[in-house]
C-alpha cells in the first residue's frame, strides 16, 4: 500500500472505531511498524486539523482518535435540539401570573396558592426564560425566590412589574360574596 492508501486505512480505522485507538493496534492493522504509523497519523492530523474540516484527529498518549471540530459544536447543537414548540399550558400560565403579581415568591408559596405542586411549571418557565431566580428567602432551608425576567416584561410591552394591571381588593370581595350566594342557592335547592 502506498502512503495514500495507508492514510485512508487509518482514516477508516479511526472513523469506525470511534474511541481512541492505540498506535500499536493501528500498526498491526496496516502492517507497518509503530514509528511509521505515528508518522502517518501525524500526516492525517495535518490533513484534518484545520477549519475546513468538521472532523479532527487528536493524539492522546499512545493513541489517536477522531472527533468533531469544536468550531462546529454550535451547528451540532442545532441538529439535536430541533426547534421545539414552546407551549404555555394553563398550569404554567397560572404559575406565571402568581409569580408576576407576588414576586419575589418561593415555590412553596406558589404551591400554597395553587394547592398543587408546581415544580414542572416552574422549571419550564425558567427554561422559557420568563422567570428567573432573584434571591433566597431568609428562612429555614433558604428557599429560592422567583421573579419575572426583563424578557417577560418586554414580551408584554411593560417596563416594570409595577405596570402590571392592578388586582383590586373590591374584586376579591366580590368573589367572596359570590361564593356565599352560591352556597345559599345550593342550600335552597337541596331542602
Amino acid at each position, binding site marked *: 500500500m502506498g502512503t495514500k492508501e495507508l492514510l485512508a486505512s487509518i482514516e477508516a480505522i479511526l472513523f469506525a472505531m470511534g474511541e481512541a485507538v492505540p498506535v500499536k493496534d493501528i500498526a498491526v492493522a496496516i502492517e507497518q511498524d509503530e514509528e511509521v504509523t505515528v508518522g502517518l497519523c501525524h500526516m492525517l492530523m495535518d490533513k484534518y486539523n484545520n477549519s475546513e474540516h468538521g472532523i479532527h484527529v487528536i493524539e492522546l498518549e499512545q493513541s489517536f482518535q477522531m472527533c468533531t471540530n469544536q468550531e462546529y459544536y454550535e451547528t451540532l447543537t442545532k441538529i439535536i435540539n430541533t426547534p421545539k414548540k414552546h407551549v404555555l399550558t394553563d398550569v404554567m*400560565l397560572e404559575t406565571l401570573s402568581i409569580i408576576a403579581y407576588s414576586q419575589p415568591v418561593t415555590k412553596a408559596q406558589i404551591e400554597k396558592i395553587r394547592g398543587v405542586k408546581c415544580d414542572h411549571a416552574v422549571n419550564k418557565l425558567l427554561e422559557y426564560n420568563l422567570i428567573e431566580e432573584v434571591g433566597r428567602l431568609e428562612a429555614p432551608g433558604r428557599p429560592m425566590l422567583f421573579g419575572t425576567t426583563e424578557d417577560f416584561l418586554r414580551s408584554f410591552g411593560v417596563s416594570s412589574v409595577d405596570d402590571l394591571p392592578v388586582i383590586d381588593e373590591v*374584586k376579591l370581595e366580590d368573589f367572596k360574596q359570590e361564593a356565599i350566594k352560591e352556597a345559599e342557592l345550593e342550600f335552597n335547592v337541596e331542602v
Partner: protein
Amino acid sequence: MDLQFKVEAFTGPLDLLLHLIEKNKVNIYDIPIVMITEQYLDYVAKMGDDDMDTMSEFLVMAATLLRIKAKMLLPKETKEEEEVTDPRAELVERLIEYKKYKYAALELKDMEIDAYKTLYRKQELPKEVVEYMPTVDAAEVISNTDIDLARLNDIFNEVMKRMTDKVDPVRSKFGKIEKEKISVEDKIIDVRARLKGLSGIHFRSLLKAQASKLELVVTFLAILELMKSGFLSVRQSHSFGEIYLDSLEG
C-alpha cells in the same frame, strides 16, 4: 434417469418448474407439458413428506399441470372466429413473473456481499453538545399564545378566587377539610341555644341555617336526640304540613 433432489433445493413449485424447463432446454413459451408434468410428478413423488406445508404447495402445482395437460389433450371444440387461448398461458405468465424476481434475488445476493464491507459508526456527540440547553426567546413563547396583560391579570384573579373560595369560612364548610369538626354534641348545644324558651319554631328555618349536607344531617340527629332527652317536642298539624319545634326548656 435417477434424479436426486432435496426438498430445500427449490424454494417452491415455480422454482422447480423453472429448473425443469431450463434443464430440458425447452422454450418457456412452448412448454412440452406432458414431459414436464411427468418429471415434475416424478420429483414430487420423491419428496419426503416431512414438510407437509411445502408438500401441499407442490401438489397444488401438480394439479395445475395435470389440468393443463388434460386441456391440451382434449380435442379443441371452438367456434371458428373465437381465438383459442393456450391452456399454458397463465402458467407461462406466472413463470416469467417469478423468474424476474428470482433473478433479482440473485442480484441482491451479489450486492449484499459488497455492501457488507461497509462499516458504520455509532452516534458519538461531544459532551458539550449533548448538555447544551438552547436559550428560549421569551417574547416568542409569549407571542405563540394569545396571552396579553389583561389575560394574565384574569388568570391571576381566577387563581386568587379559587384560593379565596378555599379559605372562605362559609365556602369551606362545603369542603372536605372541616367535615370532622361538626359533631352531634356541638349541634345539640347549638340547637338548644337557638330554641331555648321559644315555641313554634319552623323546622325548615332551622335547617335553612345549615350550610352543608353534613350539617343538615347532624342537625337532624341533634333534634332527634333533644326529643329523646325531653328538651323539645315536635308537632305537625297535618301530613306534609309545616313542622314546628317547641322548646321544653324554660
